[in-house]
């Protein structure tokens, strides 16, 4: 979380300081086309190789894995049954989807509200409040994991519940600053006009800001969806015996599926567990980048 918020400060202004001049004289600087294609092909293959290999293994049984059979194996259906049904990965996936959606929507709403407050209001103590939020950039959840665990589990008694997974992540400096940055780049006339129309702040947010913020919302959504889908350490601690285990922790139960390590089901689990975030990311990659105002689309 913290990592991404930093970029908002550093990178967002970048495109305003650079200017593209004239039509680029591409041809002179592009390497030979075939050359670029070859390099890109190799790069794509190298990056894709571990996942392709995992997908291959996910169709095999241990004997096929050990013999390095390079064609799809015979155990896909069996592995699938093991992973999705016997080891509940399907259920974990559904749990994780609802968790990721709740965090994504909740955080987007809270971030919109706090962004609105920071940009369109003057109030006493604003900079103290701002500093209060800013300082949390230095506090990734992981650092405080022992304290957070004791607090949520002990003081609140939320151990093993859905809210223990969701509520601590509903607010963050990341989202707040993302919208703050975005709003303060919008023309001030917008809010002046809205005030003249007699709109209250929430109406202004609903009618004017949100329609102008879909890229930013999309960027935050993809960050948060991927982040919450990939949560591992926190649910590993707090989700004991609840009915709501998440998929990343659920993968642990695939480490021994038959009598010892069964590579096929483990790889299948890893591949299946990666499909939703990868799809979300690929679909929203344009929003992801433009949310950071870094692409050159003018």
């Amino acid at each position, binding site marked *: 979380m913290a990592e991404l918020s930093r970029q908002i400060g550093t990178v967002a202004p970048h495109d305003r300081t650079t200017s593209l001049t004239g039509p680029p004289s591409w041809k002179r600087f592009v390497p030979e086309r075939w050359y670029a294609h070859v390099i890109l092909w190799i790069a794509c293959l190298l990056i894709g190789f571990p996942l392709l290999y995992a997908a291959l293994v996910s169709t095999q049984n241990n004997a096929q894995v050990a013999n390095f059979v390079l064609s799809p194996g015979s155990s896909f259906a069996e592995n699938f049954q093991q992973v999705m049904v016997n080891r509940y990965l399907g259920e974990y996936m559904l749990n994780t989807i*609802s968790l990721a959606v709740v965090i994504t929507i909740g955080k987007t709403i809270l971030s919109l509200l706090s962004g609105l407050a920071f940009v369109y209001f003057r109030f006493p103590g604003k900079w103290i409040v701002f500093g209060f939020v800013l300082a949390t950039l230095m506090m990734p959840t992981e650092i405080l994991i022992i304290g957070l665990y004791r607090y949520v589990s002990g003081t609140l008694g939320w151990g093993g519940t859905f809210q223990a997974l969701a509520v601590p992540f509903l607010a963050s400096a990341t989202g707040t600053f993302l919208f703050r940055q975005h709003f303060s780049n919008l023309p001030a006339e917008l809010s002046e006009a809205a005030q003249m129309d007699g709109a209250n702040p929430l109406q202004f947010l609903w009618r004017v800001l949100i329609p102008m913020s879909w890229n930013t919302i999309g960027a935050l959504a993809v960050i948060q969806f991927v982040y919450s889908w990939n949560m591992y350490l926190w649910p590993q601690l707090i989700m004991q015996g609840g*009915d709501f285990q998440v998929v990343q922790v659920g993968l*642990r139960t695939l480490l021994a599926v*038959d*009598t*010892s390590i069964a590579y096929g089901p483990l790889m299948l689990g890893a591949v299946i567990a990666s499909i939703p975030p990868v799809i979300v990311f690929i679909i929203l990659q344009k929003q992801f980048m433009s949310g950071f105002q870094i692409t050159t689309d003018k």
Partner: protein
Amino acid sequence: MSRRSMLLAALTVIMALVALAPAMAQDKIQIPVWIAFTDSRLDWSRERAAEFNELFPQYEVTIEGYADYESIFAAASLAFEQGTQPAIVQYFEAATQDARDAGFEGNPQFKSVAEAFGDRTEVNGLPVNFDDFVDAARNYYTLDGSFTSFPWNTSSAIMFSNKTMLEAAGVEGIPATWAEVDAACEKIMAMENAPANCITWPNHGWFFEQAVAMQGADLVNNGNGREARATETFINSDAAVAYVSWWKDLQDKGYYIYTGAQRDWGGTYNAFVAGQVAMLLYSSSDTTALTNDGAAAGFDVVASFYPHNQDVEYAGNLIGGASLWLSNDLSTEVEDGALTFLLYFTNTENAASWHQFTGYVPITKSAIALLESEGWYEENPNSLVASDQLAAAIPSSATAGAIVGAFPAIRNHVTNAIEQVLVNGRDVTEALTEAKELADETLAEYNLLYAGE
């Protein structure tokens, strides 16, 4: 705006989901059970639970699997703090003292099963008969005169040999002592198509404890913690140094292969099945699977006693495995359901079937009788080894096994030290002495907090 109404619709659905999730109606008495298996043993247990749920429709036993003993131990402690503890949880033998001590002021985590059964002779029509348990398990889990936890999967550390490979190398019989293992390995590694290495076993504290006990040495003071609360460990005893030195020597000669991770059951198992080693020290818990997997891979697997130090009189082995602990604060109906399940889970047929399926020793005498009457042992001689080995132990504090607080953490100090020796080439005595100091410190902290000493 359609986007906005979509957003609203999505929100509504989410809120409904969140509201509904915990409110799923449950009219049966829920009995959650946690066990430390995620492999076919979990499936076996779930089948038994399903049968139980059919036999006793008022109950619903649900079984959740954890990756290993260490993680279920941590998970149950966290769950206890969180108030989400299951009715029954499976703890390994090393957690015994921690489990007895665990609890917040005035609220212990577990209840002694003997106390829970009281003097009942049956629960829901299932007979209660503690006398039926085999001696090794009875002795280990009887503390202060009664059963604190319910024995279930009891094993011993034994050796598995690739008989086909041993014969090809001209090794006669199965090595029984450290020196014989050395000699066999020399022959095996001299073969033309020698395996990559000769022997492996997991770097798990349990194998260390077995080797120490077999030489008649205690692991901790105060009668191995059975006379009074243990306050000092003997991790750097002569027996311990002798064992780790032998181990290191095997590695130096290229006989032993370290799979690189502590408690690596899967990696060592796979190495043996893949024919990368000729011998494997392992838990008897996987006797059936190892025998079958070996046969499938085209070699004979022979189980035998854990090799002992030929320079010291053989004192015998101790048990391993785990037992089932009953949560303390259960309502009467849940507790009765849990007790009923414990009885059903370990009844004669299930105890025999569990043994056949895995290799854990049959936990009751009646199960042994049943297996004998079916001729099981004649067909599966490997399955008898663990029971025989436990029966061969000479009763003593050493072979009864250590009872000590923070045992899992102490084991960690031991396996860390062994790893220092195997991976970084540290001196055996030095590493074990340091581990002893660290372990004593951990134990002192533990005793300070739990026993106020």
